[in-house]
């Protein structure tokens, strides 16, 4: 058996059903071996599309997404997607072909040191120099990608190693390791902090779903009735309609959520990392609060905010050990009042399409839908106005902010859950970053729905130039965009356009009821902004609201 076959067998033994990739010279032995494998290869039309689809697949299934590319440009095209997975703690195994070991280091054709290039953005990486190492390396790669805090692992496979005959075949099983449980003394301190708190807030992040702790988090929130805020990745940790849910915190968070955090005297951080988009100016974030930090990753403790109690280990176990009898009714009442006071309003004047209302209606029309988001203003509107019953419904490039994520992630999600309704919400800037993946939708006849919000500009950057650069607009006008309806149709995807508010209800129905893929092109006023907004460098006390109604 050749090394390439050994690698494919190892993937099969790991239970891999899909590999997203693009062939090329150095990875040809692996593509040859794939022909004889039950693994289904999904041909993206750009390696970035492949790795981002693997990311979307991984977020929906909780299993590692696998992608594959050739050496040189194939490998470098994976870099953005690997970084995306690293920033959002997504288990991705990226396999790259490499030039033969004899010419590595000679600037051979299509040679790039992808092992070196990706070192800061992988959880771990390997160069496989001996064919007998393939089973061990693959076993370790899958283990590392999923163990503890997940992340991407790169396996670089030189072509000669892939072509070498191996004598042995056994593949190691996955090492199963129990998540550690928090230190009893820290648990005792945390319990004391909660019992002493007058204004506690649960601050939930993406770690909750990664740790399979959604049920435990909900149970603790329900039993303790502590008000809940979440990060962008934490949305859905409690249903967004839950009476304890204050909203997303941070730069484009709900004012009620930010006010609760700023007023709190105890922040119970569950699987979040004090990211700057969530905290605003750090030294003014929750200034009177003590902090309980629950995480699986020891290097997050004290990285940006001192933890008065650090509960390292399984989130579900830590949450179950926290007290639920709290005498904080005044605080609960205050939070409920803020929640009412700052509830989103959808009565925008005018006849233009109001995207927040459109998105709210879409998610209400299909409550179980998976929404894969691109990056920009529409991403924030989705986070603010769509309803999520569980975190796996919301795929978003949170840490890296990768424009071009939405369509590939939607593809990965749709393949992972063929029976589910999957919607990609994208913008006219973002869609152009991975437009070629419309062909992947067509090729595999995926029923992915696409909602393209078009403001003929790079909206978020335009908004910042308006607000923080004295309306000096620099390279944000995209009014020369192609006709997106014609573009979609040329890829064989039905498409239609709306421009007025009166068309919204019909468009939602058409979007959701069309069999197969469909693209709705929604044209909006280029001057529309996302509110509220915490200006960069300010604390979350400073929330700008719409300047003119």
């Amino acid at each position: 058996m050749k090394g390439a076959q050994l690698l494919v067998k190892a993937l099969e033994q790991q239970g891999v059903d899909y590999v997203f990739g693009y062939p090329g010279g150095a990875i040809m032995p692996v593509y040859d071996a794939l022909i004889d494998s039950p693994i289904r290869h999904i041909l993206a039309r750009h390696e970035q599309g492949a790795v981002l689809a693997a990311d979307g697949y991984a977020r929906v299934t909780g299993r590692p997404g696998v992608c594959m590319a050739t050496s040189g440009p194939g490998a470098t095209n994976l870099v953005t997607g690997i970084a995306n997975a690293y920033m959002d703690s997504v288990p991705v195994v990226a396999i790259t072909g490499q030039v033969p070991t004899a010419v590595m280091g000679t600037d051979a054709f299509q040679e790039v040191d992808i092992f070196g290039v990706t070192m800061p953005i992988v959880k771990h990486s390997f160069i496989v120099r001996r064919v007998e190492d393939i089973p061990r390396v693959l076993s370790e790669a899958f283990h590392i990608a999923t163990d503890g805090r997940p992340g991407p692992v790169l396996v670089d496979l030189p072509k000669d190693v892939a072509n070498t005959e191996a004598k042995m075949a056994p593949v190691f099983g996955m090492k199963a390791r129990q998540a550690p449980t928090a230190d009893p003394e820290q648990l005792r301190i945390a319990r004391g902090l909660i019992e002493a708190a007058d204004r506690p807030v649960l601050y939930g992040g993406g770690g909750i779903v990664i740790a399979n702790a959604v049920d435990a988090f909900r149970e603790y929130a329900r039993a303790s009735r502590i008000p809940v805020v979440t990060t962008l990745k934490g949305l859905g940790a409690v249903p967004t309609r839950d009476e304890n849910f204050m909203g997303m915190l941070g730069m484009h968070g709900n004012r009620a959520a930010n006010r609760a955090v700023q007023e709190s005297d105890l922040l119970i951080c569950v699987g979040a990392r004090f990211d700057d988009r969530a905290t605003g100016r750090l030294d003014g974030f929750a200034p009177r609060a003590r902090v309980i930090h629950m995480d699986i990753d020891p290097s997050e403790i004290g990285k940006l905010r001192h933890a008065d109690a650090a509960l390292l280990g399984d989130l579900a176990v830590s949450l179950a050990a926290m007290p639920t009898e709290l005498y904080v009714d005044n605080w609960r009442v205050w939070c409920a009042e803020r929640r009412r006071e700052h509830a989103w309003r959808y009565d925008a004047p005018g006849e233009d399409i109001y995207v927040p209302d459109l998105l709210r209606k879409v998610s209400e029309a299909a409550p179980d839908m998976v929404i894969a988001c691109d990056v920009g203003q529409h991403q924030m509107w989705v986070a603010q106005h769509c309803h999520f019953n569980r975190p796996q419904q919301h795929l978003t490039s949170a840490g890296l902010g990768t424009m071009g994520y939405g369509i590939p992630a939607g593809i990965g999600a749709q393949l992972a859950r063929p029976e589910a309704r999957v919607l990609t919400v994208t913008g006219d800037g973002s869609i152009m970053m991975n437009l070629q993946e419309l062909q992947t939708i067509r090729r595999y006849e995926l029923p992915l729905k696409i909602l393209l919000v078009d403001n003929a500009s790079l909206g978020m950057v335009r908004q910042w130039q308006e607000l923080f650069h004295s309306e000096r607009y620099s390279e944000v006008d995209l009014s020369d965009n192609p006709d997106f309806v014609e573009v979609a149709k040329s890829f064989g995807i039905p498409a239609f356009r709306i421009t007025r508010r009166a068309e919204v209800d019909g468009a939602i129905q058409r979007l959701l009821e069309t069999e197969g893929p469909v693209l709705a092109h929604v044209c909006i006023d280029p001057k529309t902004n996302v509110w509220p907004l915490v200006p960069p460098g300010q604390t979350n006390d400073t929330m700008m609201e719409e300047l003119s109604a």
Partner: protein
Amino acid sequence: MNHTLNLTIEKVEGAIIRTLGLIERRGFSVTSIDARANEGDQEMELVIQFTGTGRPAEVLARQIDKLFDVKSVHLVPTKAPAVAPAESMAC
């Protein structure tokens, strides 16, 4: 402030650069390195001195400890506590 780390790492491809790169990437500056392979050539012992800008060196030590090629990390305690800088928004 000067800090000293004693590390044992596996002698595998990329382990040294991975460790040193992490130290610099997290905002610290290496001032001295002593590295030697052990007798079996399986591991390396590193003594790294570095300076920081006020970020906690304990967090850096935990970040290094997460690397899969790193077998052990010991941060030599210093007397003066780290003073956290005024962090600002990324952009």
